[in-house]
């Protein structure tokens, strides 16, 4: 018989004897194998029980009670009876519904904390010294360095960079196709511009030739002055044409 079982039987017997439900002999007869041990335990118990503490006078107790009641401070008025309700709930009615409510509060709070924490860390990525989130950034960096996360993040970043490069290559091919068509359009427009300038120059030439004819009729001998006048007229006409074109453009823009 192990000690635990023996202790349980002997102490149960002792309790029965002390409470008067059973006599020592009855107990020893019930457990003959433990009779010797029961005897020694009963002996110790009897020794302890023989110490009779003095009876206290009921009048003295009453006096002490009155003294105590006078000393007790008034309890502050409770706003609700939550404390006594809490005791009652704990003792008698475990309110599972309310407990689950509290669980939800904890779950929601945890999720919110995680989300806001992650948001703060993300937002602090571009923080500079002096910004509110800068300490968060430095803390996260320190943590990454110390925890070895840095290498892991580098690996992930390299991976994403590679993926980006592949994507860029794909985009580059598309751009080439688009650029070719753009070039064609540009060339066409250049041609148009050339044509315009040619027509302008033709007109200039026509005007110049008219002027030349006039000047020639005025003075045939003075060739130097003719050429000077020609150039002056040309430039004047050109500037006039330019300004006209500019005004037209402005109108179009408007």
């Amino acid at each position, binding site marked *: 018989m192990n000690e635990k079982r023996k202790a349980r039987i*002997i*102490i149960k017997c002792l309790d029965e004897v002390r409470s008067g439900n059973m006599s020592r002999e009855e107990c020893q007869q019930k457990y003959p194998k433990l009779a010797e041990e029961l005897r020694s335990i009963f002996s*110790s118990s009897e020794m302890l029980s*023989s110490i009779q503490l003095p009876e206290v006078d009921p009048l003295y107790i009453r006096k002490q009670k009155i003294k105590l009641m006078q*000393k007790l401070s008034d*309890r502050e*008025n409770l706003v609700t009876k939550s404390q*006594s309700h809490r005791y009652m709930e*704990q003792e008698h009615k475990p309110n599972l519904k309310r407990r689950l409510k509290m669980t939800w509060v904890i779950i929601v709070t945890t999720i919110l904390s995680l989300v806001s924490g992650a948001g703060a860390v993300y937002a602090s990525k571009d923080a500079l010294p002096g910004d509110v989130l800068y300490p968060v950034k430095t803390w996260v960096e320190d943590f990454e360095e110390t925890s070895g996360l840095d290498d892991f993040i580098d690996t992930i970043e390299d991976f994403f960079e590679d993926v980006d490069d592949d994507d860029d290559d794909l985009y580059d091919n598309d751009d080439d196709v688009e650029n070719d068509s753009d070039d064609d359009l540009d060339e066409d427009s250049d041609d148009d511009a050339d044509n315009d300038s040619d027509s302008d120059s033709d007109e200039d030439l026509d005007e110049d030739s008219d002027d030349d004819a006039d000047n020639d009729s005025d003075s045939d001998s003075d060739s130097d002055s003719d050429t000077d006048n020609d150039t002056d007229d040309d430039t004047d006409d050109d500037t006039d044409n330019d300004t006209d074109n500019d005004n037209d453009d402005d109108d179009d823009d408007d």
Partner: protein
Amino acid sequence: MRLTLDTIHRSEDQLIIKAISGDKEAFGHLYDNYFMQIFKYLLIRTNTKEDAEDMTEIVFMKAWEHLPNFGEKKKERNFHAWLFRIAHNTLIDRYRTKKESLSLESALQIKSTNAEPEKIVLQNEKVKMIRKAIKMLDEISREVIMSRFFGGLSHKETAQLVGVNENNVRIIQYRALKKLNILLREQNE
């Protein structure tokens, strides 16, 4: 019997709830119910009757003060054990501040004051032996013996007071009584 115990517990619960709300009369009933047990427990652990009286008052003052927190911890939902825990802590505080050692001699000698002189001598001898034997027990065994034999605590309440489970209380009590028997026999020889 069961019905009666239930009724007692229910009425005690009501008294506790009323006392928490500030009802001094209800607390007075609790005082009546537990005064003797606390007083005896303290008397057996203190040097004098006066000390036991002072400390009993302190225990109930503390109980009134901390009653709104009663039941917060799962293990402290038994009022009897809770009150004894306060008594135990008060006792420790008292002897820590006074720097005195726990003595059983004076308290145990009180019983013999009304007896005949011859019996007083014999009784004192017996008390001395028991005191010496109890002193030789370890702290937890001493606490279990005191709670069970002088505090009137059940196994469950003792378990709550000492901070072990009920089965362990039984084993500690069994071993302590066995050891006491050996020690007392040695002293007699």
